[in-house]
Protein backbone atom coordinates (compact mmCIF):
# COMPACT_ATOMS: atom_id res chain seq x y z
CA UNK A 1 0.00 0.00 0.00
CA UNK A 2 2.73 2.41 1.00
CA UNK A 3 4.63 1.80 -2.20
CA UNK A 4 1.45 2.27 -4.24
CA UNK A 5 0.96 5.78 -2.85
CA UNK A 6 4.64 6.50 -3.44
CA UNK A 7 4.36 5.28 -6.99
CA UNK A 8 1.35 7.45 -7.63
CA UNK A 9 3.13 10.45 -6.11
CA UNK A 10 6.14 10.04 -8.38
CA UNK A 11 3.89 9.68 -11.39
CA UNK A 12 2.14 12.93 -10.44
CA UNK A 13 5.51 14.71 -10.09
CA UNK A 14 6.69 13.56 -13.51
CA UNK A 15 3.42 14.40 -15.26
CA UNK A 16 3.18 17.67 -13.35
CA UNK A 17 6.67 18.79 -14.43
CA UNK A 18 5.93 18.05 -18.06
CA UNK A 19 2.54 19.74 -17.82
CA UNK A 20 4.15 22.82 -16.29
CA UNK A 21 6.60 23.06 -19.19
CA UNK A 22 3.67 22.89 -21.62
CA UNK A 23 1.82 25.46 -19.52
CA UNK A 24 4.71 27.92 -20.01
CA UNK A 25 4.29 27.76 -23.77
CA UNK A 26 0.52 27.96 -23.35
CA UNK A 27 0.70 31.12 -21.25
CA UNK A 28 3.13 32.79 -23.66
CA UNK A 29 1.07 32.03 -26.74
CA UNK A 30 -2.31 32.61 -25.12
CA UNK A 31 -1.40 36.02 -23.71
CA UNK A 32 0.29 37.27 -26.88
CA UNK A 33 -2.23 35.93 -29.37
CA UNK A 34 -5.42 36.69 -27.42
CA UNK A 35 -4.37 40.31 -26.93
CA UNK A 36 -2.43 40.77 -30.14
CA UNK A 37 -4.54 39.14 -32.83
CA UNK A 38 -7.38 41.73 -32.69
CA UNK A 39 -4.82 44.39 -33.64
CA UNK A 40 -3.58 42.53 -36.71
CA UNK A 41 -5.13 44.21 -39.70
CA UNK A 42 -3.89 44.70 -43.24
CA UNK A 43 -3.08 48.30 -42.29
CA UNK A 44 -0.95 47.12 -39.36
CA UNK A 45 1.14 44.94 -41.64
CA UNK A 46 1.30 47.11 -44.75
CA UNK A 47 1.38 50.69 -43.44
CA UNK A 48 4.13 52.90 -42.08
CA UNK A 49 4.06 53.93 -38.43
CA UNK A 50 2.54 57.34 -37.74
CA UNK A 51 2.18 59.85 -34.88
CA UNK A 52 5.38 58.98 -33.01
CA UNK A 53 4.75 55.22 -33.31
CA UNK A 54 1.42 55.40 -31.50
CA UNK A 55 -0.55 54.52 -34.63
CA UNK A 56 -0.15 53.01 -38.05
CA UNK A 57 1.64 49.84 -39.04
CA UNK A 58 4.98 48.11 -38.75
CA UNK A 59 5.81 47.53 -42.42
CA UNK A 60 9.38 48.93 -42.17
CA UNK A 61 10.15 46.61 -39.24
CA UNK A 62 8.87 43.55 -41.12
CA UNK A 63 10.74 44.61 -44.23
CA UNK A 64 13.92 45.28 -42.22
CA UNK A 65 13.82 41.87 -40.56
CA UNK A 66 13.33 40.14 -43.93
CA UNK A 67 16.24 42.05 -45.53
CA UNK A 68 18.44 41.43 -42.52
CA UNK A 69 17.72 37.71 -42.63
CA UNK A 70 18.48 37.69 -46.36
CA UNK A 71 21.93 39.22 -45.79
CA UNK A 72 22.59 36.78 -42.97
CA UNK A 73 21.69 33.92 -45.33
CA UNK A 74 23.86 35.15 -48.20
CA UNK A 75 26.85 35.42 -45.90
CA UNK A 76 26.47 32.50 -43.50
CA UNK A 77 25.11 29.74 -45.72
CA UNK A 78 27.96 29.47 -48.31
CA UNK A 79 30.55 29.93 -45.58
CA UNK A 80 28.90 27.43 -43.22
CA UNK A 81 28.22 24.80 -45.87
CA UNK A 82 31.80 25.07 -47.16
CA UNK A 83 33.19 24.62 -43.67
CA UNK A 84 30.96 21.63 -42.96
CA UNK A 85 31.98 20.12 -46.30
CA UNK A 86 35.62 20.51 -45.35
CA UNK A 87 35.08 18.87 -41.97
CA UNK A 88 33.06 15.95 -43.29
CA UNK A 89 34.57 15.32 -46.74
CA UNK A 90 38.22 16.38 -46.57
CA UNK A 91 39.43 16.61 -43.00
CA UNK A 92 41.18 13.73 -41.32
CA UNK A 93 41.05 13.57 -37.52
CA UNK A 94 44.20 15.59 -36.88
CA UNK A 95 44.99 18.10 -34.18
CA UNK A 96 43.94 20.96 -36.49
CA UNK A 97 40.52 19.46 -37.20
CA UNK A 98 40.00 18.93 -33.49
CA UNK A 99 40.86 22.58 -32.89
CA UNK A 100 38.38 23.62 -35.60
CA UNK A 101 35.64 21.49 -34.06
CA UNK A 102 36.38 22.85 -30.60
CA UNK A 103 36.23 26.41 -31.98
CA UNK A 104 32.84 25.75 -33.54
CA UNK A 105 31.45 24.30 -30.30
CA UNK A 106 32.72 27.28 -28.37
CA UNK A 107 31.43 29.79 -30.92
CA UNK A 108 27.97 28.28 -30.41
CA UNK A 109 28.29 29.03 -26.70
CA UNK A 110 29.44 32.65 -27.02
CA UNK A 111 26.69 34.95 -25.68
CA UNK A 112 24.90 36.81 -28.47
CA UNK A 113 25.67 40.24 -27.00
CA UNK A 114 29.39 39.47 -27.41
CA UNK A 115 28.78 38.89 -31.11
CA UNK A 116 27.20 42.35 -31.03
CA UNK A 117 30.39 43.81 -29.54
CA UNK A 118 32.52 41.94 -32.07
CA UNK A 119 30.35 43.20 -34.93
CA UNK A 120 30.69 46.72 -33.58
CA UNK A 121 34.48 46.45 -33.34
CA UNK A 122 35.00 44.63 -36.65
CA UNK A 123 32.31 45.71 -39.12
CA UNK A 124 31.15 49.08 -37.78
CA UNK A 125 34.55 50.43 -36.76
CA UNK A 126 37.52 48.51 -38.22
CA UNK A 127 35.97 47.87 -41.65
CA UNK A 128 34.21 51.22 -41.50
CA UNK A 129 30.82 49.92 -42.60
CA UNK A 130 29.10 52.11 -40.01
CA UNK A 131 25.93 51.18 -38.15
CA UNK A 132 24.10 49.68 -41.09
CA UNK A 133 22.00 46.85 -42.43
CA UNK A 134 25.16 45.27 -43.82
CA UNK A 135 27.05 45.38 -40.48
CA UNK A 136 24.09 43.91 -38.61
CA UNK A 137 23.49 41.22 -41.24
CA UNK A 138 27.14 40.15 -41.16
CA UNK A 139 27.12 40.10 -37.35
CA UNK A 140 24.05 37.85 -37.34
CA UNK A 141 25.79 35.75 -40.00
CA UNK A 142 28.75 35.13 -37.68
CA UNK A 143 26.35 34.18 -34.89
CA UNK A 144 24.55 31.72 -37.20
CA UNK A 145 27.72 30.07 -38.53
CA UNK A 146 28.29 27.42 -35.85
CA UNK A 147 24.67 26.23 -36.09
CA UNK A 148 24.75 26.03 -39.89
CA UNK A 149 28.06 24.15 -39.81
CA UNK A 150 26.82 21.65 -37.23
CA UNK A 151 23.49 20.92 -38.92
CA UNK A 152 25.07 20.71 -42.40
CA UNK A 153 27.65 18.27 -41.12
CA UNK A 154 24.87 16.13 -39.65
CA UNK A 155 23.15 16.10 -43.06
CA UNK A 156 26.41 15.15 -44.83
CA UNK A 157 27.06 12.36 -42.33
CA UNK A 158 23.78 10.71 -43.22
CA UNK A 159 24.93 10.13 -46.80
CA UNK A 160 26.33 6.61 -47.07
CA UNK A 161 29.99 6.19 -47.99
CA UNK A 162 29.11 3.68 -50.69
CA UNK A 163 27.68 6.58 -52.71
CA UNK A 164 30.99 8.44 -52.48
CA UNK A 165 32.97 5.37 -53.45
CA UNK A 166 30.72 4.57 -56.40
CA UNK A 167 30.93 8.15 -57.66
CA UNK A 168 34.70 8.41 -57.33
CA UNK A 169 35.10 5.06 -59.10
CA UNK A 170 33.59 6.70 -62.19
CA UNK A 171 36.70 8.86 -62.47
CA UNK A 172 35.19 12.09 -61.20
CA UNK A 173 37.19 14.52 -59.04
CA UNK A 174 36.35 14.98 -55.38
CA UNK A 175 35.07 18.50 -55.91
CA UNK A 176 32.79 17.37 -58.75
CA UNK A 177 31.49 14.59 -56.55
CA UNK A 178 30.69 17.07 -53.77
CA UNK A 179 29.10 19.58 -56.15
CA UNK A 180 27.08 17.16 -58.28
CA UNK A 181 26.29 14.26 -55.95
CA UNK A 182 26.83 14.86 -52.24
CA UNK A 183 25.46 18.39 -51.78
CA UNK A 184 22.32 17.86 -53.94
CA UNK A 185 21.62 14.65 -52.04
CA UNK A 186 22.08 16.40 -48.67
CA UNK A 187 20.14 19.50 -49.72
CA UNK A 188 16.87 18.86 -47.82
CA UNK A 189 18.81 18.14 -44.62
CA UNK A 190 20.95 21.24 -45.09
CA UNK A 191 17.86 23.36 -45.80
CA UNK A 192 16.20 22.19 -42.58
CA UNK A 193 19.20 23.29 -40.53
CA UNK A 194 19.54 26.57 -42.42
CA UNK A 195 15.89 27.53 -41.97
CA UNK A 196 15.91 26.69 -38.26
CA UNK A 197 19.05 28.79 -37.84
CA UNK A 198 17.54 31.69 -39.76
CA UNK A 199 14.38 31.65 -37.67
CA UNK A 200 16.61 31.98 -34.63
CA UNK A 201 18.58 34.80 -36.26
CA UNK A 202 15.38 36.65 -37.23
CA UNK A 203 14.34 36.80 -33.58
CA UNK A 204 17.73 37.93 -32.22
CA UNK A 205 18.02 41.42 -30.81
CA UNK A 206 21.25 41.69 -28.84
CA UNK A 207 23.69 41.34 -31.79
CA UNK A 208 22.01 44.08 -33.81
CA UNK A 209 21.65 46.60 -30.97
CA UNK A 210 24.92 48.40 -31.72
CA UNK A 211 25.45 47.36 -35.30
CA UNK A 212 22.64 49.14 -37.12
CA UNK A 213 19.10 48.73 -35.82
CA UNK A 214 17.06 51.88 -35.19
CA UNK A 215 13.64 52.55 -33.68
CA UNK A 216 12.58 54.80 -36.50
CA UNK A 217 14.00 55.13 -39.98
CA UNK A 218 12.61 57.80 -42.22
CA UNK A 219 10.86 56.40 -45.26
CA UNK A 220 11.56 52.78 -44.42
CA UNK A 221 15.10 52.75 -45.86
CA UNK A 222 16.35 49.56 -47.48
CA UNK A 223 19.89 50.35 -48.58
CA UNK A 224 22.80 48.30 -47.30
CA UNK A 225 24.64 51.16 -45.65
CA UNK A 226 21.74 52.78 -43.81
CA UNK A 227 20.19 51.97 -40.45
CA UNK A 228 17.07 49.84 -40.44
CA UNK A 229 14.10 48.79 -38.32
CA UNK A 230 13.60 45.20 -37.15
CA UNK A 231 10.69 43.38 -35.48
CA UNK A 232 12.43 42.16 -32.30
CA UNK A 233 14.00 45.55 -31.60
CA UNK A 234 10.69 47.24 -32.35
CA UNK A 235 8.99 45.04 -29.76
CA UNK A 236 11.73 45.82 -27.23
CA UNK A 237 11.42 49.58 -27.77
CA UNK A 238 7.61 49.60 -27.74
CA UNK A 239 7.45 47.61 -24.53
CA UNK A 240 10.20 49.36 -22.56
CA UNK A 241 11.41 52.64 -24.03
CA UNK A 242 8.43 54.42 -25.54
CA UNK A 243 7.28 57.67 -23.88
CA UNK A 244 3.68 56.43 -23.53
CA UNK A 245 4.06 52.73 -22.93
CA UNK A 246 0.43 51.98 -22.05
CA UNK A 247 -0.77 53.74 -25.19
CA UNK A 248 1.40 51.62 -27.50
CA UNK A 249 0.78 48.34 -25.67
CA UNK A 250 -1.64 47.10 -28.39
CA UNK A 251 1.04 47.84 -31.01
CA UNK A 252 3.60 45.92 -28.94
CA UNK A 253 1.24 42.94 -28.77
CA UNK A 254 0.67 43.15 -32.52
CA UNK A 255 4.42 43.23 -33.17
CA UNK A 256 4.90 40.21 -30.91
CA UNK A 257 2.24 38.29 -32.84
CA UNK A 258 3.89 39.06 -36.18
CA UNK A 259 7.36 38.14 -34.87
CA UNK A 260 6.25 34.86 -33.32
CA UNK A 261 4.15 33.99 -36.38
CA UNK A 262 7.15 34.58 -38.65
CA UNK A 263 9.43 32.42 -36.51
CA UNK A 264 6.88 29.60 -36.17
CA UNK A 265 6.18 29.68 -39.90
CA UNK A 266 9.88 29.18 -40.64
CA UNK A 267 10.08 26.40 -38.05
CA UNK A 268 7.02 24.60 -39.39
CA UNK A 269 8.48 24.75 -42.89
CA UNK A 270 11.76 23.29 -41.60
CA UNK A 271 10.01 20.44 -39.78
CA UNK A 272 7.91 19.73 -42.85
CA UNK A 273 11.10 19.45 -44.91
CA UNK A 274 12.72 17.21 -42.33
CA UNK A 275 9.65 14.97 -42.15
CA UNK A 276 9.43 14.66 -45.93
CA UNK A 277 13.14 13.98 -46.24
CA UNK A 278 13.09 11.30 -43.55
CA UNK A 279 10.07 9.48 -44.97
CA UNK A 280 11.64 9.55 -48.45
CA UNK A 281 14.85 7.87 -47.33
Amino acid sequence: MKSKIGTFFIWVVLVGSTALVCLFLGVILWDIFSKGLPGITLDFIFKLPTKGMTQGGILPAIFGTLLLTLITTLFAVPFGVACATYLNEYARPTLITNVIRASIRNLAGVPSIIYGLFGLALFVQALNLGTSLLSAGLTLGLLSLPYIITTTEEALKRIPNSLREATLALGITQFEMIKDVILPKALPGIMTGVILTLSRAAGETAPILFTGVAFFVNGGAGSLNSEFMALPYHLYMLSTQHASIELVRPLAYGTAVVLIALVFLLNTFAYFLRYKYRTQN
Partner: protein
Amino acid sequence: MKTKGRENLDLVFKFVFKGTGFLTIALLAGIFFMLIFNSANFFNNVGLAAFFSGNHWDPESKYSVLPLLVSTFLVTLGSMLIAIPLGILSAAFLSEVASKNAKAILKPIIEMLAAVPSVAIGFIGIVVVGPGLSNIFGLQNGLNALNGSILLAVMALPTIITISEDAINAVPLTHREASFALGANKWETLFKITLPAAMPGLIAAVMLGLGRALGETMTVLMATGNASVMPKGFLDSVRTITSTIAIEMGEVPYQTTHYFSLFAIAALLFLISLIINFLGEYFAQRLRKFHA
Protein backbone atom coordinates in the same frame (compact mmCIF):
# COMPACT_ATOMS: atom_id res chain seq x y z
CA MET B 1 36.55 20.31 -69.59
CA LYS B 2 40.11 19.02 -69.91
CA THR B 3 41.37 16.71 -67.19
CA LYS B 4 44.09 19.19 -66.15
CA GLY B 5 41.50 21.94 -65.69
CA ARG B 6 39.26 19.68 -63.66
CA GLU B 7 42.13 18.67 -61.44
CA ASN B 8 43.13 22.29 -60.89
CA LEU B 9 39.56 23.22 -59.99
CA ASP B 10 39.50 20.31 -57.57
CA LEU B 11 42.68 21.59 -55.92
CA VAL B 12 41.42 25.17 -55.73
CA PHE B 13 38.22 24.14 -53.99
CA LYS B 14 40.08 21.86 -51.64
CA PHE B 15 41.89 24.96 -50.39
CA VAL B 16 38.74 27.07 -50.36
CA PHE B 17 36.96 24.50 -48.17
CA LYS B 18 39.98 24.14 -45.94
CA GLY B 19 40.24 27.93 -45.68
CA THR B 20 36.70 28.23 -44.31
CA GLY B 21 37.64 25.69 -41.64
CA PHE B 22 40.56 27.84 -40.55
CA LEU B 23 38.37 30.95 -40.59
CA THR B 24 36.27 29.51 -37.75
CA ILE B 25 39.41 29.34 -35.62
CA ALA B 26 40.22 32.89 -36.71
CA LEU B 27 36.71 33.98 -35.71
CA LEU B 28 36.98 32.60 -32.18
CA ALA B 29 40.51 33.98 -31.87
CA GLY B 30 39.27 37.31 -33.26
CA ILE B 31 36.53 37.56 -30.64
CA PHE B 32 39.03 36.62 -27.94
CA PHE B 33 41.66 39.17 -28.96
CA MET B 34 39.09 41.89 -29.58
CA LEU B 35 37.94 41.45 -25.97
CA ILE B 36 41.47 41.21 -24.56
CA PHE B 37 42.76 44.19 -26.52
CA ASN B 38 39.89 46.50 -25.57
CA SER B 39 39.89 45.29 -21.96
CA ALA B 40 43.62 46.00 -21.73
CA ASN B 41 42.88 49.65 -22.50
CA PHE B 42 40.42 49.65 -19.62
CA PHE B 43 42.69 47.93 -17.10
CA ASN B 44 45.52 50.37 -17.95
CA ASN B 45 43.28 53.18 -16.75
CA VAL B 46 41.36 51.59 -13.91
CA GLY B 47 43.22 48.53 -12.68
CA LEU B 48 42.16 45.05 -11.71
CA ALA B 49 41.85 45.86 -8.01
CA ALA B 50 39.19 48.52 -8.56
CA PHE B 51 37.38 46.22 -10.98
CA PHE B 52 37.09 43.38 -8.49
CA SER B 53 36.34 45.40 -5.36
CA GLY B 54 33.75 47.89 -4.20
CA ASN B 55 30.04 47.58 -4.82
CA HIS B 56 29.13 50.27 -7.31
CA TRP B 57 29.02 50.24 -11.08
CA ASP B 58 28.78 53.93 -11.73
CA PRO B 59 30.49 54.69 -15.05
CA GLU B 60 32.80 57.68 -15.31
CA SER B 61 33.87 57.11 -11.70
CA LYS B 62 33.31 53.69 -10.13
CA TYR B 63 33.89 50.55 -12.13
CA SER B 64 33.21 47.67 -9.79
CA VAL B 65 32.03 44.59 -11.63
CA LEU B 66 30.85 42.91 -8.41
CA PRO B 67 27.21 44.10 -8.38
CA LEU B 68 26.85 43.05 -12.02
CA LEU B 69 28.51 39.71 -11.37
CA VAL B 70 26.36 39.03 -8.29
CA SER B 71 23.26 40.01 -10.28
CA THR B 72 24.21 37.66 -13.10
CA PHE B 73 24.87 34.78 -10.70
CA LEU B 74 21.69 35.44 -8.73
CA VAL B 75 19.41 35.41 -11.78
CA THR B 76 21.15 32.40 -13.29
CA LEU B 77 21.12 30.48 -10.00
CA GLY B 78 17.39 31.10 -9.64
CA SER B 79 16.73 29.96 -13.18
CA MET B 80 18.69 26.73 -12.62
CA LEU B 81 16.86 26.00 -9.34
CA ILE B 82 13.66 26.04 -11.39
CA ALA B 83 14.88 24.52 -14.65
CA ILE B 84 17.06 21.63 -13.44
CA PRO B 85 14.39 19.66 -11.54
CA LEU B 86 11.64 20.53 -14.03
CA GLY B 87 13.85 19.71 -17.00
CA ILE B 88 15.20 16.40 -15.75
CA LEU B 89 11.81 15.21 -14.48
CA SER B 90 10.18 16.12 -17.80
CA ALA B 91 12.96 14.32 -19.67
CA ALA B 92 12.41 11.26 -17.45
CA PHE B 93 8.69 11.42 -18.20
CA LEU B 94 9.34 11.72 -21.94
CA SER B 95 11.76 8.82 -22.15
CA GLU B 96 10.40 6.40 -19.52
CA VAL B 97 6.66 7.01 -19.20
CA ALA B 98 5.16 8.86 -22.17
CA SER B 99 3.47 6.82 -24.86
CA LYS B 100 4.46 7.23 -28.49
CA ASN B 101 1.43 9.44 -29.11
CA ALA B 102 2.12 11.62 -26.09
CA LYS B 103 5.70 12.07 -27.31
CA ALA B 104 4.49 13.06 -30.77
CA ILE B 105 2.62 15.96 -29.13
CA LEU B 106 5.13 16.88 -26.43
CA LYS B 107 8.26 17.04 -28.58
CA PRO B 108 6.95 19.73 -30.95
CA ILE B 109 5.74 21.70 -27.91
CA ILE B 110 9.27 21.71 -26.52
CA GLU B 111 10.69 22.66 -29.91
CA MET B 112 8.18 25.52 -30.16
CA LEU B 113 9.16 26.73 -26.70
CA ALA B 114 12.80 26.76 -27.86
CA ALA B 115 11.84 28.80 -30.92
CA VAL B 116 10.11 31.67 -29.09
CA PRO B 117 12.42 34.70 -29.52
CA SER B 118 14.02 35.98 -26.32
CA VAL B 119 12.52 39.42 -26.77
CA ALA B 120 9.00 37.88 -26.76
CA ILE B 121 9.81 36.06 -23.52
CA GLY B 122 11.05 39.36 -22.06
CA PHE B 123 7.76 40.92 -23.13
CA ILE B 124 5.88 38.21 -21.22
CA GLY B 125 8.04 39.13 -18.23
CA ILE B 126 6.71 42.67 -18.44
CA VAL B 127 3.03 41.95 -19.13
CA VAL B 128 2.39 38.64 -17.29
CA VAL B 129 5.11 37.60 -14.82
CA GLY B 130 5.85 41.14 -13.54
CA PRO B 131 2.25 42.04 -12.58
CA GLY B 132 1.82 38.52 -11.17
CA LEU B 133 4.85 38.83 -8.90
CA SER B 134 3.89 42.32 -7.74
CA ASN B 135 0.45 40.97 -6.73
CA ILE B 136 1.81 37.95 -4.89
CA PHE B 137 4.57 39.74 -3.00
CA GLY B 138 2.92 43.17 -2.76
CA LEU B 139 5.69 44.97 -4.63
CA GLN B 140 5.55 48.22 -6.55
CA ASN B 141 6.52 46.40 -9.69
CA GLY B 142 7.48 42.84 -10.48
CA LEU B 143 10.63 43.64 -12.43
CA ASN B 144 13.22 41.83 -10.30
CA ALA B 145 15.66 38.92 -10.16
CA LEU B 146 12.89 36.36 -9.59
CA ASN B 147 11.10 37.49 -12.75
CA GLY B 148 14.33 37.11 -14.73
CA SER B 149 14.96 33.69 -13.16
CA ILE B 150 11.53 32.39 -14.16
CA LEU B 151 11.95 33.59 -17.75
CA LEU B 152 15.50 32.26 -18.07
CA ALA B 153 14.29 28.92 -16.72
CA VAL B 154 11.71 28.82 -19.51
CA MET B 155 14.46 29.56 -22.04
CA ALA B 156 16.87 26.97 -20.64
CA LEU B 157 14.24 24.23 -20.31
CA PRO B 158 14.11 23.05 -23.94
CA THR B 159 17.90 22.64 -24.01
CA ILE B 160 17.97 20.78 -20.69
CA ILE B 161 15.02 18.53 -21.58
CA THR B 162 16.25 17.59 -25.06
CA ILE B 163 19.80 16.70 -24.02
CA SER B 164 18.70 14.99 -20.78
CA GLU B 165 16.26 12.86 -22.73
CA ASP B 166 19.02 11.80 -25.12
CA ALA B 167 21.20 10.94 -22.13
CA ILE B 168 18.46 8.86 -20.47
CA ASN B 169 17.67 7.09 -23.74
CA ALA B 170 21.34 6.25 -24.15
CA VAL B 171 21.39 4.18 -20.93
CA PRO B 172 21.41 0.56 -22.15
CA LEU B 173 18.20 -1.38 -21.69
CA THR B 174 20.17 -4.16 -19.96
CA HIS B 175 20.73 -1.86 -16.93
CA ARG B 176 16.98 -1.55 -16.50
CA GLU B 177 16.32 -5.21 -17.11
CA ALA B 178 18.91 -6.19 -14.51
CA SER B 179 17.28 -3.85 -12.02
CA PHE B 180 13.80 -5.25 -12.70
CA ALA B 181 15.18 -8.78 -12.35
CA LEU B 182 16.39 -7.88 -8.85
CA GLY B 183 12.84 -6.92 -7.95
CA ALA B 184 13.08 -3.14 -8.21
CA ASN B 185 9.98 -1.38 -9.47
CA LYS B 186 9.82 1.17 -12.28
CA TRP B 187 10.54 4.20 -10.11
CA GLU B 188 13.32 2.61 -8.08
CA THR B 189 14.91 1.70 -11.38
CA LEU B 190 14.47 5.24 -12.72
CA PHE B 191 15.91 7.05 -9.70
CA LYS B 192 18.53 4.54 -8.57
CA ILE B 193 19.73 3.07 -11.86
CA THR B 194 18.77 5.00 -14.98
CA LEU B 195 19.25 8.60 -13.82
CA PRO B 196 22.59 7.93 -12.05
CA ALA B 197 23.82 6.08 -15.14
CA ALA B 198 22.81 9.04 -17.30
CA MET B 199 24.51 11.50 -14.93
CA PRO B 200 27.33 12.73 -17.21
CA GLY B 201 24.76 13.50 -19.90
CA LEU B 202 22.47 15.21 -17.41
CA ILE B 203 25.34 17.39 -16.23
CA ALA B 204 26.19 18.24 -19.84
CA ALA B 205 22.53 19.20 -20.38
CA VAL B 206 22.54 21.43 -17.31
CA MET B 207 25.82 23.07 -18.38
CA LEU B 208 24.45 23.90 -21.82
CA GLY B 209 21.21 25.26 -20.31
CA LEU B 210 23.28 27.24 -17.82
CA GLY B 211 25.37 28.70 -20.64
CA ARG B 212 22.25 29.78 -22.43
CA ALA B 213 20.77 31.44 -19.33
CA LEU B 214 24.03 33.17 -18.41
CA GLY B 215 24.54 34.76 -21.82
CA GLU B 216 20.95 35.79 -22.41
CA THR B 217 20.49 39.53 -22.85
CA MET B 218 17.04 40.67 -23.91
CA THR B 219 14.91 38.78 -21.36
CA VAL B 220 16.92 39.98 -18.37
CA LEU B 221 17.21 43.46 -19.84
CA MET B 222 13.43 43.72 -20.09
CA ALA B 223 12.35 41.87 -16.95
CA THR B 224 14.79 42.56 -14.11
CA GLY B 225 14.49 46.32 -13.59
CA ASN B 226 18.19 47.08 -14.19
CA ALA B 227 19.10 48.84 -10.91
CA SER B 228 22.89 48.81 -10.76
CA VAL B 229 23.23 48.28 -7.02
CA MET B 230 24.29 45.21 -5.08
CA PRO B 231 21.18 43.00 -4.94
CA LYS B 232 20.13 41.55 -1.57
CA GLY B 233 17.66 38.93 -2.71
CA PHE B 234 15.45 37.57 -5.44
CA LEU B 235 12.89 40.36 -5.01
CA ASP B 236 15.47 43.07 -5.72
CA SER B 237 15.94 44.67 -9.08
CA VAL B 238 19.18 43.48 -10.62
CA ARG B 239 21.36 44.39 -13.56
CA THR B 240 23.32 41.62 -15.19
CA ILE B 241 26.54 41.92 -17.19
CA THR B 242 24.65 41.42 -20.45
CA SER B 243 22.03 44.11 -19.70
CA THR B 244 24.74 46.55 -18.67
CA ILE B 245 26.46 46.13 -22.03
CA ALA B 246 23.13 46.45 -23.86
CA ILE B 247 22.10 49.60 -21.98
CA GLU B 248 25.39 51.46 -21.94
CA MET B 249 27.05 50.57 -25.25
CA GLY B 250 24.34 52.43 -27.17
CA GLU B 251 25.07 55.73 -25.46
CA VAL B 252 28.77 55.73 -24.72
CA PRO B 253 31.25 57.64 -26.89
CA TYR B 254 33.71 55.32 -28.65
CA GLN B 255 37.25 54.79 -27.30
CA THR B 256 36.60 56.17 -23.80
CA THR B 257 37.29 54.38 -20.51
CA HIS B 258 33.57 53.76 -20.15
CA TYR B 259 33.51 52.20 -23.64
CA PHE B 260 36.46 49.95 -22.84
CA SER B 261 34.93 49.00 -19.49
CA LEU B 262 32.04 47.34 -21.33
CA PHE B 263 34.52 45.15 -23.20
CA ALA B 264 36.14 44.27 -19.86
CA ILE B 265 32.87 42.96 -18.40
CA ALA B 266 32.17 41.21 -21.71
CA ALA B 267 35.58 39.51 -21.47
CA LEU B 268 34.68 38.27 -17.99
CA LEU B 269 31.36 36.92 -19.28
CA PHE B 270 33.16 35.30 -22.22
CA LEU B 271 35.59 33.53 -19.87
CA ILE B 272 32.77 32.25 -17.67
CA SER B 273 30.84 30.95 -20.71
CA LEU B 274 34.00 29.31 -22.02
CA ILE B 275 34.56 27.46 -18.74
CA ILE B 276 30.94 26.30 -18.65
CA ASN B 277 31.20 25.10 -22.26
CA PHE B 278 34.36 23.17 -21.50
CA LEU B 279 32.73 21.53 -18.49
CA GLY B 280 29.67 20.65 -20.57
CA GLU B 281 31.87 19.23 -23.30
CA TYR B 282 33.93 17.26 -20.78
CA PHE B 283 30.83 15.56 -19.40
CA ALA B 284 29.39 14.98 -22.88
CA GLN B 285 32.66 13.23 -23.81
CA ARG B 286 32.43 11.06 -20.70
CA LEU B 287 28.92 10.09 -21.71
CA ARG B 288 30.17 9.08 -25.16
CA LYS B 289 33.05 7.05 -23.70
CA PHE B 290 30.75 5.40 -21.19
CA HIS B 291 28.42 4.18 -23.90
CA ALA B 292 31.07 3.37 -26.49
